């Protein structure tokens, strides 16, 4: 029997040479006359170890990483195919503390399966949730989502069940399910990993949502910066259709659901749900005023469930294990787990799925191993470009929507970007305004103009220390206008990184204790 060797096909592995490693392994095996079965699996999410090569030995998966093409020959020489020692040996991967200490409900198959294998997917719990949903009434499915406490994972944290219920109760000849896969936040990659690593889970979640609300067509809007995710999702839709999970008469149930993959075109604002709907309709991605809610007047004017990738990816677990099993994780009003993403200047960056309530410090220190540079941590930006910068003193805050908001933070999509003490926080604040100026859709004046003026004011603070106090005051005033005068999070939340940097790191803004207080 041939030996199974796994080399991930996740783009975080490909970007550090996984294809070249796979090729080298194939060549070495052929040259040595060894029969191997090379599987291109998904990534486990231990991204500092990528490319992470695994070998199945005696029922265990033994890992080696990070493997370079040059190291492959020495791996063969050392006997890695039988699990022998090597400087790159990581050991039995499932026993690795990084994985063992997680609570993986959504990422349960990550790294284990071939993403495009329907057999693999079903052998590891796939489509159990769908089969359960097919024998329930739409109202019962919605009730399960409500009972699970699942909240939208895109950032706003709106209860998913209420969205679904609204769509279910709105009468229309056509309804839609739209997946927001426009994961534009820097520091986040969980949506990408779902689409590249477990695409059938997302498709299953979409079908469940479709059955629950009476929608027969779903769209996945994927950012153009994710070409691998797009091609894997397209192939997964083809295979799911051939397998009878999509199309007419799903698994003999008489239900219909189709999925269309749509490629975005590089606009950050299209991650906002109403801008995304405009874009899907073929227009400029400009934010709509709400109401009407998309659940009532959504895509092409029809009732639409629009959810983030992770929200829909949680549905199969809830349906297969029951809402209580999901709600048993978490704290307060944040139920279940969140796949956190450790990014930036961090030693052990990657994906850590934990129940809500874990602290940022536990994530960064216990899992992440501190900064990669070895220098002291200075700031952590949580929740993407529109999230606040938190200083070390706030890192013991539990990761929960409400607890973080009480400290002026935002959980967003669960990305944590770590900066060491070389960071210039005034420069980070300036960048936040610059990014808003680049990406603003232009609809609201405070966002369109305010971002440019904001960048100028911060530049004044940076270059004219004597006037820093007065300009800091002006900056606060401007931020106040942006917060209150913008329709969506682009304009109303850009002040989060700006003001948190100013509040926690005034010394970087040429402010003394006195001028800071006055500002």
């Amino acid at each position, binding site marked *: 029997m041939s030996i199974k060797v796994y080399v991930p096909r996740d*783009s*975080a592995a*490909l*970007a*550090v040479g996984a294809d070249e490693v796979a090729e080298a392994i194939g060549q070495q095996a052929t040259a040595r006359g060894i029969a191997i079965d090379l599987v291109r699996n998904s990534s486990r999410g231990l*991204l*500092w170890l*990528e490319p992470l090569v695994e070998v199945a030995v005696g029922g265990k998966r033994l890992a080696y990483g990070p493997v370079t093409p040059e190291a492959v020959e020495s791996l063969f020489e050392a006997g890695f195919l039988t699990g022998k020692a090597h400087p790159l040996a990581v050991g039995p991967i499932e026993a690795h503390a990084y994985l063992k200490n997680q609570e993986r409900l959504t990422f349960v198959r990550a790294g284990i399966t071939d993403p495009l294998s329907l057999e693999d997917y079903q052998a590891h719990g796939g489509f159990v949730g769908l089969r359960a949903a097919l024998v329930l009434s739409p109202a019962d499915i919605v009730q399960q989502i409500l009972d699970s406490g699942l909240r939208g994972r895109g950032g706003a944290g709106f209860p998913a069940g209420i969205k679904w219920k609204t769509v279910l109760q709105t009468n229309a000849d056509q309804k839609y399910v739209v997946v927001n896969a426009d*994961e*534009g*936040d*820097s*520091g*986040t*990659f969980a949506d*990408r990993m779902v689409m590249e690593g477990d695409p059938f889970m997302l498709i299953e979640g979409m079908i469940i949502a479709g059955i629950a609300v009476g929608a027969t067509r779903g769209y996945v809007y994927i950012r*153009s*910066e*994710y*070409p691998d995710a797009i091609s894997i999702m397209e192939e997964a839709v083809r295979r799911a259709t051939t397998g009878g999970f999509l199309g007419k008469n799903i698994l003999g149930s008489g239900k219909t659901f189709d999925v269309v993959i*749509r*490629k*975005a*075109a*590089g*606009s*950050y604002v299209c991650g906002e749900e109403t801008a995304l709907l405009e*874009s*899907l*309709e*073929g*227009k*400029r*991605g400009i934010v709509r005023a709400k109401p009407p809610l998309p659940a009532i007047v959504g895509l*092409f004017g029809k009732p639409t469930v629009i959810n983030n990738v992770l929200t829909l990816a949680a549905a199969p677990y809830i349906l297969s294990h029951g809402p209580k099993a999901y709600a048993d994780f978490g704290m307060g009003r944040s139920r279940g787990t969140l796949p956190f*993403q*450790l*990014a*930036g*200047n*961090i030693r052990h*960056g*990657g994906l850590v799925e934990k129940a809500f309530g874990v602290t940022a410090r536990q994530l960064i220190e216990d899992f992440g191993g501190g900064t*990669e540079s070895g220098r002291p941590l200075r700031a952590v*930006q949580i929740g993407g*470009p529109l999230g606040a910068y938190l200083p070390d003193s706030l890192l013991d805050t539990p990761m929960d929507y409400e607890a973080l908001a009480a400290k002026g933070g935002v959980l967003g999509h669960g*990305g944590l*970007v*770590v*900066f*060491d003490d070389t*960071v210039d926080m005034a420069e*980070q604040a300036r*960048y936040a305004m610059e*990014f808003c100026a*680049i*990406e603003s859709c232009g609809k609201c004046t405070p966002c369109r103009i305010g971002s440019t003026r904001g960048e100028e004011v911060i530049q004044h603070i940076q270059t004219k220390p004597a006037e820093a106090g007065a300009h800091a005051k002006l900056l606060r005033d401007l931020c106040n206008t942006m917060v209150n005068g913008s329709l969506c999070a682009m304009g109303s939340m850009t002040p989060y990184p700006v003001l948190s940097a100013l509040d926690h790191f005034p010394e970087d803004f040429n402010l003394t204790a006195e001028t800071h207080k006055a500002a």
Partner: protein
Amino acid sequence: MNSMTAREAQAVEAALDRFQDEQGALLPLLHAVQDTLGYIPKQATPTIASAFNLSRAEVHGVITYYHHFRQTEPAQHKLALCQAEACQARGCRSLTEKAEAALGCNLGEHTKDNRWELEPVYCLGLCASGPAMELDGKLYARVTPERLESLIRKKELS
């Protein structure tokens, strides 16, 4: 107004055949044209507008709104460097300076001979292994200045 070249007209025609009847399919259509030609010809705007029953202004608005779409021919090689926070924390600013020096053009510009263009990109989803970049459609992560220079050199020789 100049008309499209035969090659351009053919690409637009093929894309229209595929997407004209699909609801809201202006973006897929524009992607198809750009994937074939490398850009969306300015002269295609009236053709697309009439096929979609839109005004030329609407089509022009969509093409120019999205960063991904372009109306000029791309350079021979495209280097997109991530400029977002996670890569900033891992040294993308100094890497960008290196790239600008190596190519002799600034971020957001192309070289005089149009062999290279250097573009900012805001997140490639490789945030745990920055600095990240895309070179001629291939992703690279944990990019050191040495690696960047050797990749550029390889492309120059090819």
